[in-house]
């Protein structure tokens, strides 16, 4: 962002950065920055809170109202928004088909909630590598790897594990948001990896691929680095 601020300002357009990492703007010195200590991924702070978002914008645009003729100007927003690391309380579907791996059964059971979410939003973040129909097949492949099958012999639909995991998480998160309404930053990540069968199976498959000598980017980015 700070690079683009330099480039765009040099073209004669005033810029204001909503900065999420203070040391980065201190080093890169874009013309005007409002440092906001909000969860990464939420630069306006709180989704669904127009009043709060307007406060951020008012503060950001106030950096333009200055007699200064040079930067950098860095100001701190006066309120901190914390992430919520606790798994969101979201009901999971009951076991339906005992012949299926639990993660596959679970993904199928969330389909109605996912479909309602897509109908409401009119589009979906699922689809980078696989579609919603394929999510249970992905989890079936991860289940096989987690259960001991050699990862090199298991066909993972979508192939690119990073893109596939984007889709699996988007499927679960969109379904969960339909069920719980809203969630703090990271609480759905915690829910996915700590509460769902899909998350647990993903982490087990990731470990199995790592232990089986899989290339670092292939398994590491299947989950956030701290997991």
């Amino acid at each position, binding site marked *: 962002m700070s*690079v683009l601020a330099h480039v765009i300002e040099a073209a004669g357009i005033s810029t204001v*950065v909503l900065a999420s990492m203070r040391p980065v703007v201190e080093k*890169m*010195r874009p013309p005007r920055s409002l440092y906001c200590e909000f969860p*990464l991924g939420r630069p306006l702070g709180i*989704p669904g809170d127009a009043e709060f978002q307007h406060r951020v914008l008012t503060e950001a645009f106030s950096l333009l109202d200055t007699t200064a003729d040079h930067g950098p100007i860095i100001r701190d927003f006066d309120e901190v928004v914390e992430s919520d690391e606790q798994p969101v309380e979201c009901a999971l579907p009951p076991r339906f088909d005992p012949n299926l791996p639990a993660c596959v059964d679970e993904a199928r059971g969330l389909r109605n909630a996912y479909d309602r979410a897509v109908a409401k939003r009119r589009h979906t973040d699922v689809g980078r590598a696989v579609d919603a129909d394929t999510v249970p097949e992905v989890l079936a492949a991860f289940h096989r790897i987690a259960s001991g099958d050699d990862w090199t012999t298991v066909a993972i639909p979508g192939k690119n594990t990073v893109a596939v995991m984007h889709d699996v998480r988007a499927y679960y998160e969109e379904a969960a948001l339909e069920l719980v309404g809203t969630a703090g930053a990271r609480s759905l990540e915690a829910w996915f990896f700590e509460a769902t069968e899909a998350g647990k199976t993903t982490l087990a498959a990731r470990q199995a691929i790592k232990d089986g000598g899989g290339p670092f980017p292939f398994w590491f980015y299947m989950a956030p680095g701290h997991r």
Partner: protein
Amino acid sequence: MREMGKNLPVPTFDGTAWASAPRLRDATVAIVTSAAIHRAHDDRFSAGDTGYRMIPSDAHDLVMGHWSPNFDHTGFQIDLNVVFPIDRLHELAADKVIGRVAPRHYSFAGNQPDDVSAIRLDSGPAVAAELKRDGVDVVLLTPV
């Protein structure tokens, strides 16, 4: 991630450019984001994509194209304004706090190659030229 940011190698600039804006109530305002959001039917961002996508002012069919699993995507799913505050800008224009909302906005991928030379020399200046063409006076930059 924030801890990592303290030691992140970053490109440096010899100086800080400075452009004076007209009064905010007369200014045309655009958003440029590094959230890799794009319209659902647009080309997706590839990993390491140094290009950009244009977002018309009235588009709400936006999806998150960022590749990193390390930050929260759900805020955007709940309310796109928490990343791309387009509805807020329209409200500010209706209230005559800003002059007008630019017709076109731009999105880049945040996870750029370390030297960021492409957005510094190619795609960044290309977007700046498009913004100039639309008469944009002020750009709000939103990261993820």
